């Protein structure tokens, strides 16, 4: 698998049977990158995973939101995105401004009106924010990285796709989990990260691994 950093406009492929995926576009015969990120070629699709960027809502994602406005029919929720989420409720007094919720995005229309559902209150923990594009790396394949984090720190960890992470545990455990998450965020574009996170949680390396740090 290629892991190469490209910038917008850079040529990725000129082969006819390659398909342009996320973060790319077709310009006549060639496929070019449209974002600053890391190239991934899976089967015949070439895509670029951005290194930074805002969270854009997608139906089916779980996100962590903060209630900002309460109306009769529901409340508006800040989901750490350019777009605001709407959570329909039966009564007016179900949620109050400032409530922290884990929610599911049930609908996103073409102008990004976001409808939320399935709310679960989050309390007694610490909320941290990371760059949203790093979330897949923090979760890992089939939640492998998240399992390592949970086992290594004894914390309950709730991850929103929008870059918000809620950690529940003793103060020391929470601190350790946050440091591990910051390590993943910093080194998300590098390989062999799982082993480094394991080593960090076992206390074998300090948090500032210098392999591929974001400067």
């Amino acid at each position, binding site marked *: 698998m290629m*892991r*190469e*950093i490209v*910038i*917008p*406009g850079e*040529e990725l492929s000129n082969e006819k049977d390659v398909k342009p995926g996320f*973060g790319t*576009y077709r*310009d006549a015969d060639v496929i*070019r990158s*449209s*974002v*600053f*990120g890391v190239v991934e070629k899976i089967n015949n699709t070439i895509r670029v995973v*951005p*290194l*930074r*960027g*805002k969270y*854009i809502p997608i139906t089916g994602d779980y996100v962590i939101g903060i209630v900002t406005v309460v109306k009769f029919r529901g409340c508006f929720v800040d989901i750490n995105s*350019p*777009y*605001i989420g709407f959570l329909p409720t039966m009564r007016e007094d179900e949620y109050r401004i400032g409530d922290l919720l884990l929610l599911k995005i049930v609908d996103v229309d*073409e*102008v*990004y009106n976001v409808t939320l559902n399935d709310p679960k209150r989050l309390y007694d923990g610490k909320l941290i924010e990371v760059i949203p*594009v790093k979330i897949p790396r923090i979760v890992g394949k089939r939640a492998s990285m998240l399992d390592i984090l949970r086992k290594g720190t004894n914390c309950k960890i709730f991850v929103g796709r929008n870059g918000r992470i809620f950690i529940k545990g003793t103060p020391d455990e929470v601190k350790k989990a946050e440091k591990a998450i910051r390590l993943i965020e910093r*080194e998300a*574009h*590098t*390989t*062999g990260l799982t082993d480094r996170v394991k080593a960090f949680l076992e206390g074998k390396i300090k948090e500032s691994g210098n*392999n*591929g*740090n*974001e*400067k």
Partner: protein
Amino acid sequence: MGMKSDIELIKDGKRLDGRGVNDLRPITIKAGVLERADGSCYVEWGGNKVLAAVYGPQECLPKHIASPHRAVLTYRYNMAPFSVEDRKRPGPDRRSIEISKISKEALERVVLLEKFPNTMIKVFVEILQADAGTRCAALTAASVALADAGIPMRDLVTACAAGKIGGEIVLDLGKKEDNFGEADVPVAILPHTKEIVLMQMDGQLTPEEYRKALDLSIDGCTKVYELQKKALRERYVEGVD
């Protein structure tokens, strides 16, 4: 431009600062210099010092300028009061409003605005020190900052000026050359398609001279593009196992 002076701008093919006619001033570009901004870039281009910051896409405010079809791009070119020899009165003036407008239009050509309806992307460029060619340096910095913010773009925008001094067409005018020269042609292009997204001319050129100046500035842009590319790549050291 056009000021009278007895300085000899070109002597034996060498310019005032020792450059040849086809040489750029020394340029350094650094991406990701600001902690709070979503994307940022710092450019030193000869005596120019330019800082660019990008915010967004974010909620569009004021709401009446939002479009359900595309994101709104704003561009603010601003010169610091201490950026020029005599103190500049702070705030936008005729010149900076014009530069903001044309630079915004240049960037609108590359940013994939239709991906983020009802939002806005804000670009701020501060000229900390000016030494001729600030609009080119500003646009160069702004496009690196946009890429650094992870905003999808067709290509980067690269800018460079050419002009005429002492009867010769030269690349990238310095301050004295700009003040006492005969013409200045700032150009911004998309490096892959060579599409021109910004072009202005101050002074007078014959059609042949103009064509030569345009070709020369496009050559200059190609060199600047390599530096932009390097700056972005250097932001992340590649992890090779």
